[in-house]
């Protein structure tokens, strides 16, 4: 990839990250910021990683809150936890299950896995937003969080692709992706089933966002700070 194009992409990604940082109220201490409109902006890998971690942390935060609110509002005493042991659609992606496994896997592979997980969530998040909008008595909070998560996920995916391009230039784009089966159709399922499917999706979202967050933090410390965060 051309360096200039990469820098340009990195710059735009950095601007997006800056915006997200402002939203997150994080103090970006001394990270260099590309002036808006700059074409040849060199963004360091460190900055990219820092911002990616911030973004993934934010997404996990939002999904935790969203799950908690949904549980309080719709799933009280309904025993959804039983059915929530269903598999998430991303279970097919062989992500490391604990720290040793994560440490033993190579950066490249781990990054690819992260990208795969992020990519797999694009479609479900879109449908999640649509469904939440149409839900009866859905509060604005859940909807706004869903919308936010969908947007941030796209940003994170974009950022990760840039990082991958920078850390492992020349690597071919991997195609890790797991297809989401979709919600049960409104005609086929009753309200309970639909709510259960919802619950499951939010549970999976929380879990996967935590996964991605942990992997990225691990990678950041490993790559940038040399295991000394």
């Amino acid at each position, binding site marked *: 990839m051309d360096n200039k194009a990469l820098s340009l992409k990195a710059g735009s990604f950095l601007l997006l990250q800056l915006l997200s940082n402002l939203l997150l109220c994080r103090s970006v201490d001394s990270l260099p910021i590309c002036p808006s409109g700059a074409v040849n902006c060199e963004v360091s890998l460190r900055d990219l990683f820092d911002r990616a971690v911030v973004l993934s942390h934010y997404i996990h935060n939002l999904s935790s809150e969203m799950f908690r609110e949904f549980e309080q509002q719709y799933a009280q005493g309904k025993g959804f936890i*039983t059915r929530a042991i269903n598999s998430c659609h991303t279970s097919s992606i062989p992500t490391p299950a604990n720290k040793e496994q994560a440490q033993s896997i190579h950066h490249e592979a781990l990054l690819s896995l992260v990208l795969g997980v992020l990519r797999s969530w694009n479609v479900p998040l879109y449908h999640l937003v649509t469904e939440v909008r149409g839900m009866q008595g859905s509060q604005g909070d859940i909807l706004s969080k869903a919308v936010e998560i969908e947007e941030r996920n796209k940003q994170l995916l974009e950022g990760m692709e840039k990082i991958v391009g920078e850390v492992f230039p020349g690597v071919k784009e991997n195609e890790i992706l797991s297809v989401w089966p979709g919600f049960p159709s409104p005609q086929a399922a009753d309200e309970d089933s639909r709510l259960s499917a919802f619950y499951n999706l939010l549970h999976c979202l929380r879990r996967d966002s935590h996964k991605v967050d942990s992997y990225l933090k*691990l990678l950041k410390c490993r790559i940038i700070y040399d295991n000394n965060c």
Partner: protein
Amino acid sequence: MRTRALNPEARLEGPPGMGLWKLLLTLAVAGSSNAFPGSEAIPALLDRAPPSLHRVHPGLGTNSSGKPQLTKCRSPELETFSCHWTDGGRRGFESPGLTQLFYIRRNTQEWTQEWTQEWKECPDYVTAGANSCYFNASYTSIWTPYCIKLTSLGGTLDQKCFSVEEIVQPDPPTGLNWTLLNISLTGIHADIQVRWEPPSNADVQKGWIVLEYELQYKEINETQWKTMDPVASTSVPVYSLRLDKEYEVRVRSRQRNSDKYGEFSEVLCVTLPQTSPLPCEEDFQFPWFFLIFFGLFGLAVILLLFLFSKQQRIKMLILPPVPVPKIKGIDPGLFKDGKLEEVNTILAIHDNYKPEFYNDDSWVEFIELDIDDLDEKTEGSDTDRLLSDDRRKSLHILGAKDDDSGRTSCYDPDILEADFDAGDMADGPSEVAKPQRLKGEADLLCLDLKNQNNPPSSDAPPATQEPSVTPAEENKSRPLLLGDNAQSTHPTAHAQLSNPSSLANIDFYAQVSDVTPAGSVVLSPGQKNKAGIPQCDMQLEAASFCQANFITDNAYFCEADAKKCVAAAPPAEVGARAEPSFNQEDIYITTESLTTTAGRSGASERAPSSETPVPDYTSIHIVQSPRGLLLNAMALPLPDKEFLSSCGYVSTDQLNKIMP
């Protein structure tokens, strides 16, 4: 399966002789327990749907029923976890080793909706203490659902499902210490910096887990801890501690994004160095109060000195006098004399009248011309009386001490005043009845007309002049044609004049529309109907009192009147001068009048039509020099062709049609 269930008994360390007793006891327990629906078949049953799983909340640990319950499962560093349960309180009767914990974890391939998997037993009952099960790193899978259950002799006592990342509760931080940052200038307060280390088992360096910390502090003898906001770093400043107190500090940590804190660290005692024991004022307050108070006091004293001093100049500086308004116009003498009616009239007409005075200049020349003629005529007794009366009258009416107007000219207030006098005193023509005071203007009008007419009528030959004179005098003598009084007086109409009813129809106040050169005031017509038939209505004896035919709808000449008057006049006059004929009529020169003079010959006599209502106030369209006022016809039904037929005003257009 059954063997498996029984195998754990081999681990029990009870005395061999107790085996039978234990067996009996467990059987008894099993039999009496309520939590065993189909107890033998629970583990790993193929077909049965899993019993309803429920989360065991650590807080609800009341073991009322007496059986062991899962209290809490916890992972301190996201690498291992352990589960704890309570004993159940049945000590002595139940061996602690009887309770077992089984777990099952879902793998991607193994887990299905049905509980087909085998439950595995807890790998380590020891490491985490009594009544606990410890899962080391090899047994721990993050992001994987686990279910555990507590069994006793095969019977499930409790069950719980969770994921490891949800149960993270870090250990307390270690290595708390503090350093002094600074001491305040007063020596009362100090700031310190507290530092600590993250828990040793949390792998923060590799970034596997990210922690945040919460610090609490309090004075030694206090009971309430003060809490600070969570921080992500491992040191935090604490501000404003008093130097003479001792403090305690403690810190706890939690994984960022979760809400469960770990345990508190050990308490750190902070003993600040004692500085000088002298009590010191916290701040020095500037004595603002005293300063302001005494300052104001001094200022007040100085001000009073100035005020009460006799120094007028200084007093003027501080308290400048308020200018008093000065209003011209009304003679205060009137008030003193009690002539309120005059004052009223003055007030009523002053605004309208006053400006007229300032037109004196333009009128002067003209009037002088007229007056020159007039004076010759007015040597007559009647005229003289009129003039003198006018003078007085006008004075009474207006009482205007207006120095600007030429008092010597005959249309002065003096002259006008004389009119009133004439009217009031019923001088002049005796036929004039004593007019009522309020309607003086009407009377005046009539009277004047009568008076004015007299000379012209008497002096037939100089008819050309007289008409001009009379109008002038008329104008002079009628400074106020108020209201409906447009009763054009006629010498022979005095009787009518005297009719009180007529006077009753006159408005008290009427707007002065103009002042004729002769000095008389032209009033705007009031309500025509109110006027009824003006008493000073002109009689239609054309010859005798044509000049007095001032049909006044409020002092305007109807063309009928004008016609009559004009007819009386020598034709020569008519032909020669349109204007003088107007002057005859003297009151108001309307376009109509003009036209009537022009078209008189062809005009048929009309009864005092005056049927058309005339508005009270009409704006002047043109001031025909020198004696005509062209009024704007307002809402008047203009006759199609014969505008002359309407006693009213002629619009400019019509006038233009008529006049060249």
